[in-house]
């Protein structure tokens, strides 16, 4: 709350990204506007015999390029290391000191919080599978836990085990920044970082923090992650053409493309941003969260939860459906999502549905799972900044059932005043954040 009892306005004063299209904002943005794809053959592990052999990896990333004390993060899982790089960029832009016990930025560390949508670190697969192989008797179908433990106790490493925990990216960011405000981490599947950003906005509005370091970090490009998604038949199997595999809203879409990365936004109360005199990139004006309460395996057929999340975000922003210019879609390139998301957009935007500009950058970047919403929100901020909306690439054979304006293949120059970022998680958790061009 501000001194006069009004809710704080929440603005964005820094952004940072580590993703398949680059390790900094401008590289990513130029690649995105150029219609590039971050998808290629998987190299993190040997996926050559998997039903899907490609993914959108972060390549040639080195956390040591971002920090003075890389040792502190050396055991971090991929997500944690990505989070550190993205947070360094965002904090620099926002003028928040990092890696120091004596910050000179004038910000009380108790007033800086962190909220990430972050996922697990990869298991040590040699140890994980090796221990199972050692313990399992395939004739009796019985596990000998002593044999299992003999291998596990030697091959599993303590720090690697600790770093698998989903709260570790947030832990690394508190060490990096010294933040002592509310520090949270959530994992609502593909909606996690949109949720984190929304809840972080609420923390500032109610006065629990002046600054929240929000966003997400995740990598599920590991054997068990890919096994899980392949078995769910959720991934594209277009192995002969990885770069065109992520093709949201097309008739030929056959699943999403697994990606990885981290995206961080610095959220700040308008009062604090003005006091510090930092540049304001955009304002977060609305947040909505809902659950499908339908099935863990499928989205609600009519998009009930998606509609509710969008409508509550619009209401929270004090807007009507007539005010939104741009929807940055969840747009995963699965048969189910793209069709239900389209239905939900139509239900929310009514007679305006076909005028609404909708695009999915997962076509370029792949699906960053827990980090997806954060990365996509950043592209909304850039769309507002530069007056250009990124395209949905690979959209050459539109699904005749899906008839919105999906910005096919070429970015669109247009004034974006209000953009909506929507994310829908497996199991039916839906989150929507609305971002607006900043005006005093």
């Amino acid at each position: 709350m501000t001194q006069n009892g009004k809710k704080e306005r929440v603005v964005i004063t820094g952004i940072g990204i580590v993703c398949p299209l680059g390790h900094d904002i401008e590289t990513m943005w130029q690649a995105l506007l150029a219609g590039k794809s971050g998808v290629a053959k998987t190299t993190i592990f040997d996926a050559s015999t998997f039903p899907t052999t490609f993914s959108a990896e972060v390549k040639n990333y080195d956390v040591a390029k971002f920090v003075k004390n890389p040792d502190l993060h050396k055991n971090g899982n991929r997500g944690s290391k990505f989070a550190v790089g993205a947070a360094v960029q965002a904090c620099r832009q926002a003028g928040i000191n990092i890696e120091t016990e004596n910050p000179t930025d004038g910000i009380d560390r108790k007033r800086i919080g962190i909220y990430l949508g972050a996922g697990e670190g990869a298991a040590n697969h040699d140890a994980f599978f090796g221990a199972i192989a050692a313990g399992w008797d395939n004739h009796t179908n019985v596990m000998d836990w002593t044999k299992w433990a003999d291998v596990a106790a030697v091959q599993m490493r303590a720090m690697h085990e600790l770093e698998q925990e989903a709260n570790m990216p947030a832990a690394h960011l508190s060490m990096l920044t010294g933040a002592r405000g509310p520090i949270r981490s959530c994992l609502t599947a593909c909606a996690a970082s949109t949720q984190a950003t929304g809840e972080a906005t609420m923390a500032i509005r109610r006065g629990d923090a002046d600054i929240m370091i929000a966003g997400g970090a995740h990598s599920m490009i590991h054997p068990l992650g890919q096994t899980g998604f392949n078995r769910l038949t959720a991934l594209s199997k277009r192995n002969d053409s990885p770069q065109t595999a992520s093709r949201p809203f097309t008739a030929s879409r056959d699943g999403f493309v697994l990606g990885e990365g981290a995206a961080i936004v610095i959220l700040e109360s308008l009062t604090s941003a003005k006091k510090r005199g930092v540049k304001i990139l955009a304002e977060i004006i609305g947040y909505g969260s809902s659950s499908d309460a339908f099935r863990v395996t499928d989205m609600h057929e009519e998009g009930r939860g998606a509609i509710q999340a969008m409508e509550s975000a619009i209401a929270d922003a004090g807007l009507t459906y007539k005010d939104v210019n741009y929807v940055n879609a969840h747009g995963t390139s699965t048969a189910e999502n793209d069709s239900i998301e389209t239905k939900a957009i139509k239900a929310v935007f009514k007679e305006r549905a076909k005028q609404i500009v909708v695009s999915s950058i997962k076509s370029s970047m792949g699906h960053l799972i827990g980090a997806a919403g954060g990365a996509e929100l950043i592209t909304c901020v850039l769309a507002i900044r530069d007056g250009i909306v990124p395209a949905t690439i690979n959209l050459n054979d539109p699904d005749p059932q899906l008839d919105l304006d999906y910005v096919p293949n070429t970015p669109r120059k247009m004034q974006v005043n209000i953009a909506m970022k929507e994310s829908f998680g497996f199991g039916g958790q839906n989150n929507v954040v609305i971002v607006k061009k900043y005006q005093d």
Partner: protein
Amino acid sequence: MGRTRVVITGIGAISPLGLTSARTWEGLCAGKSGIKRITKFDPAKFTCQLAGEVEEYKIQQYVPKSFRKATKLMSKDIELAVIAADEAVRDSGLITKAIDEQKINVNPQRMAINIGAGLISCDPCELAPAVAKSLSDGKFDIQKWGKEGLDLVTPLWLLKYLPNMLACHVGIIHDIQGPSNTITCAEVSGHIAIAEATEVIARGNSDIAIAGGAEAKVNPVLIMRQCLIKRTTNKHNNDAEGACRPFDADASGSVFGDGGGIVVLENLDNATKRGAKIYAEVVGTGQSACINPVYEHIEPDGYGLTIAIEKALAQANISPKDIDLIIPHGTGIPQDDLAEAKGIEAAIGKETKRIPVWPTKSMLSNTGAACGGLDVVAAVLAIRDGIIPAAKNCVKKAIGCNLNIVTTAQKANIRYALCCGYTYGGQTAAVILKKFEN
């Protein structure tokens, strides 16, 4: 306009002491320990062979008939959440879809859910046939896995192990359509989930929230992990009852277990209007982090915990003088217990000598994401009955711990109770409950 008041109108627990909150509370009051030698798998080669296991149950009895098929998609973590939520909802008198589809007395869109979850490990046995198919010369061969092994993994395998599935299953069973979140801050997840759900109601996004945490730690992968990080005791394999000794001079580590603790939170107006029984009011929550380069432990002075408690006190607009019970995290890990004791002492100052501190893990074991939910349920019942049970296994207080650990059960008029927690990785939280007064 004052802050919307949020009260607790239902409680549910499943723990090594019993399948309900009542049984759990009886066990706590009787000073029973739920810690035993592990039976789920042969622990002979584990440095800690003890755990808090939950007794047998039939999950089908806790879900509506139409949902029985979906129980096949539930890992134990999910089952624990479903069982604790079932008790909490029934206890609250709310009639959700699961309770009686004909008499629903809630608006599903005005209900929220927030269940803290751990990093669920799959059951190695479940993947073993697929691994066996993927061996070359006895070694795991990833190419064989991709080609043949993978097909032996059940198609919906992943859905059992996503942490958000606790909230999703409970949400589907009870038809909860409002805001939904899954806090994954390891051992402080339950506390934070309750804090955040309180905020969701306070800001008007819902009238009712199902909140807490659940986790099944008794899994060979997870127990091995804790053994390797050296957070478990390895000195008590022949003395299960005395194994977990929070704040005791002879403490040597924690013991892990299965559990779930869930509460129904409700906007006071809503609760009053429907004539609900009100256990307690959530009057203050606070959160921060410990920062320690050795991040499997919290910083030696527990400062992150001090901040969380101070924020909760400030929000509740009370001073330490008003607190009559503290349930700490108290894991039995000596250096963490000491840091926690210092962190609490710094927040409550002169009241350190007076305020009874009652750690529960010597009896409940360390149930990870469930800890906060179970401790809040225990605090609610302590307030209701005016009883603070005795701490178990704190025979001689550790040097440097100045807390007033309750060694004998006592009657007490508990005006305010504080539950606090922390986790490896540093996140901390404090939740203050107030005995309900109109």
